[in-house]
């Protein structure tokens, strides 16, 4: 089925998320929609899927104008979507998820589950998916859950398939498998829209590339274009994809983690008996797919996990059992993984956010009252130093873009005298320009002799920053390898395969 979008425009208040976007996708073709976070890709797809109503423009399938009033209409017309955040009910089985919304029934509205299982098996066999229809979705690995999403779309005879940032949650191996599935679907004559901001993937599978920036189509590109060309189209200027990083000047081991475990409320070892250390002036990056214990490890270092075993010490003194306040006072800087939840108070101004962790005494608080003059000077200086783009220090943090919010967090953490910097997902959801900035700041901290722990699910980031890489899988560390380890080996480790040979770590 051929899909065509003509002049689609979607506004949210004064913000134009999609500005007269045109797009044609032919059957049997993978069309890549490339753009930065916030460029309007997902909005466009939600318009296509009937979740949003466009102010202008039209959607055509096989040259017929469509009017969707909801996702039900879009699906009936043959559009299927694999969402970035899976639209699966965790406590339902695979079969129940697949039939939800178009349930086969026997008399009296009774569910016909045998028919549902059969349908799941048919589609699963056709594409070699190997999915058990009776498994509960929450028990399945992320990669398999994604296949359930695909089966869900196919079970409704989708002819146009939209993949919205499908590789964000996958290991490199799972990504490769997904690419094969997409090619298979293409062979089967489906029209495929692949939304991403990862250049490597685009060049591997795309037949055509459309680049979107700030809600507008900025042009077409061929899959043979170089990374630099694609990136500069995406960002609108030339960008540096690799950062300058000198050789590490290593000091003594500063952060030492020994036989350390974190136990969750139901007794699972979410971090399972790990040991590593970080030397002064070194960046150790923890790689791994989301949800393999990285979050809990970082929270434990900062004192946010109640049940732990083993020891973490910084410069010889143990951090276990200390309160968050005491740990911060020891000189630990913390860039949390979700800046909107843990990093900032959205309703506070930039200035207030810059001293969130310094309200317990001088210089910013004297006799219980805030020193507003000092705060203003300090904030103005940081605004300039960290290139935070805002009207002023009185702007609410919630009104800033993601990149500028992250700069506020970094400015706060780096303006103290640090003995350790912990940065979790420091560039998640940031545009390429901000990524450059954040990375160079982290490297600066390292060069100043601070030990740095970076946690990232993006292999690109890990490779760009790390002096050494520790790979986490199911709470354990699979191995610790040098920063220049090839990607395919890291990928295997992220899937839990221990390194063969060369048993000694760097």
């Amino acid at each position, binding site marked *: 089925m051929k899909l065509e979008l003509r002049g689609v425009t979607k506004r949210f208040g004064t913000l134009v998320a999609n500005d007269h976007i045109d797009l044609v996708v032919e059957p049997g073709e993978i069309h890549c929609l490339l753009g930065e976070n916030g460029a309007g890709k997902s909005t466009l797809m939600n318009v296509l899927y009937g*979740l949003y109503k466009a102010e202008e423009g039209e959607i055509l399938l096989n040259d017929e104008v469509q009017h969707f009033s909801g996702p039900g209409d879009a699906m009936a017309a043959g559009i299927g979507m694999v969402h970035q955040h899976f639209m699966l009910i965790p406590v339902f089985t695979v079969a129940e998820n697949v039939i*939800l919304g178009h349930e086969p029934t026997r008399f009296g509205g009774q569910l016909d589950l045998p028919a549902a299982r059969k349908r799941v098996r048919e589609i699963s066999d056709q594409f070699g998916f190997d999915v058990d229809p009776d498994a509960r979705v929450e*028990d399945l690995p992320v990669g398999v859950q994604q296949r359930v999403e695909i089966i*869900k779309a196919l079970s409704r005879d989708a002819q146009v398939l939209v993949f919205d940032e499908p590789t964000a949650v996958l290991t490199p191996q799972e990504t490769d498998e997904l690419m094969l599935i997409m090619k298979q679907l293409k062979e089967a004559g489906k029209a495929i829209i692949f939304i991403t901001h990862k250049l490597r993937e685009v060049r591997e599978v795309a037949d055509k590339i459309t680049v979107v920036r700030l809600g507008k189509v900025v042009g077409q590109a061929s899959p043979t274009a170089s990374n630099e060309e694609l990136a500069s189209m995406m960002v609108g200027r030339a960008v540096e994809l690799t950062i300058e990083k000198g050789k590490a000047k290593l000091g003594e081991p500063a952060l030492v983690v020994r036989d350390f475990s974190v136990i969750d409320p139901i007794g699972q070892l979410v971090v399972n008996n*790990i040991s590593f*250390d970080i030397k002064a002036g070194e960046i150790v990056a923890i790689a791994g797919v989301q949800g393999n214990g990285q979050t809990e490890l970082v929270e434990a270092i900062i004192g946010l996990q109640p049940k732990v075993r083993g020891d973490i010490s910084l410069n010889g003194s143990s951090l276990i059992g200390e309160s968050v306040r005491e740990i911060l006072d020891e000189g630990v800087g913390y860039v949390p993984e979700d800046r909107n939840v843990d990093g900032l108070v959205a309703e506070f101004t930039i200035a207030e956010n810059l001293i969130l962790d310094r309200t317990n005494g001088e210089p910013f608080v004297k006799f219980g009252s805030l020193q507003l003059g000092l705060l203003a000077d300090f904030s103005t200086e940081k605004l300039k130093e960290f290139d935070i783009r805002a009207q002023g220090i009185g702007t609410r943090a919630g009104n800033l873009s993601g990149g500028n919010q992250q700069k506020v967090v970094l400015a706060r953490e780096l303006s103290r005298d640090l003995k350790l910097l912990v940065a979790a997902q420091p560039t998640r959801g940031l545009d390429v320009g901000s990524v450059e900035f954040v990375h160079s700041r982290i490297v600066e901290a390292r060069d100043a002799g601070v030990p740095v722990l970076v946690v990232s699910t993006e292999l690109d980031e890990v490779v760009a920053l790390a002096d050494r890489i520790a790979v986490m899988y199911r709470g*354990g560390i699979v191995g610790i390898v040098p920063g220049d380890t090839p990607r395919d080996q890291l990928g295997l480790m992220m899937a839990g395969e221990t390194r063969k040979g060369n048993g000694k*770590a760097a």
Partner: protein
Amino acid sequence: MSTSVATSSTSGSKVALEKTVVKSWKTPIALGFFALVSVVLFGVFGRSGVTQFRVSTSADLIQIPDMFVPSDLTCWVLAIVMVALAAFAAWRVKVAAKVPLWLTIVFAIVFVFAFLTWAAAGALIPIPGLLIGAVSLSVPLIFGALSGVICERTGVVNIAIEGQLLAGAFTSAIVASVTKQPFAGLIAAMVAGMLVSFVLAAFAIKYLVDQIIVGVVLNVLVSGLTGFLFSKVLSPNEQLLNHPPRFDRIDIPVLGQIPIIGPVLFNQTIIVYIMYLTIAVVAFALFRTRWGLRTRSIGEYPQAADTVGIKVNTTRFWNVSLGGAIAGFGGAYFTLGSVGLFTKDMTAGAGFIALAAVIFGRWDPIRATLAGLLFGFATNLQSVLGVIGSPVPSQFMLMLPYVVTIFAVAGLVGMSRPPAADGKPYIK
């Protein structure tokens, strides 16, 4: 830099992590507390005499003779059993094993039996009477709980069960009195419960007002409104407006003659038989039908339901209305099934106990029914012991149902998982 932890298999579809046992001393402490209470009770306030348990009613097919047990001795034996069970639970936790659920259940039964033996020393406990009353008192609780289960499974917390019960009781009294038709009263009760639900649904779903606040306000509103109308309109015209005909008990042949179970379950009013049917229908519909699958999906993850074309807020609206109708129907039992007329605030917190039954029953219609029965039993135990003259002051006994509720919900539920989107409005 040492690397450790050999994680091997990647093939399995399960992603369970390695587990360690979290020691929870909650159960042994609770059991130990009750064992201690028993020992003190039987030791310090020991009562001599013989306790008589009546097991059959005169209508039963097979007559089982009454049981006589020596109060003092029985209590002591049972107290020792309880201490042993508590010690066993403590030992299980100490060696990092789980305390099995059967242990708690056995302990509870032993405790109740010992307590009965003690409280009724020198008197007679009519077991069938105790249970018949328990079923009677749990009818509104069960209807309320079923209403709560449907509403919460669809993602709306129905705090207004109390108000719906009261509205049902009030309306059914008037309509049945005026028409002289108890069935008309039943239908009116459903409509009344539904009207209360409409207000909850409209504010909670359409206008996104906090569900808890709307629910609480509705309870106060219905209580005030029915109380006012009762004293100004119903009381002066009692013969015309508050004199509803009651449903008679219907004895089901054969089933009604089974010892113990027969008179308890199969010699009841039509409302109770409709309750059995409702429980079965709700349990079946929720887990085996299209409606149930969609309802549960909306309570778990409304966005996902929306993306497959299910109308989230419309479905929620009608499910909450259905819940209101069921609760209203349960309210009619107060006036048409048991008391025979409406009095001010006659539901007396049954709606809140029903809400506790929903949670204790883990959002499952059958389990919530069982929880309702337990709370009904506790309520009736209190009144039966009052009648036979128990040595415990009556004020203490009045607390019993609520104490049981608190212990059940706080102590035994543990880590149960409510529907993920329970109580959260859905905004696109």
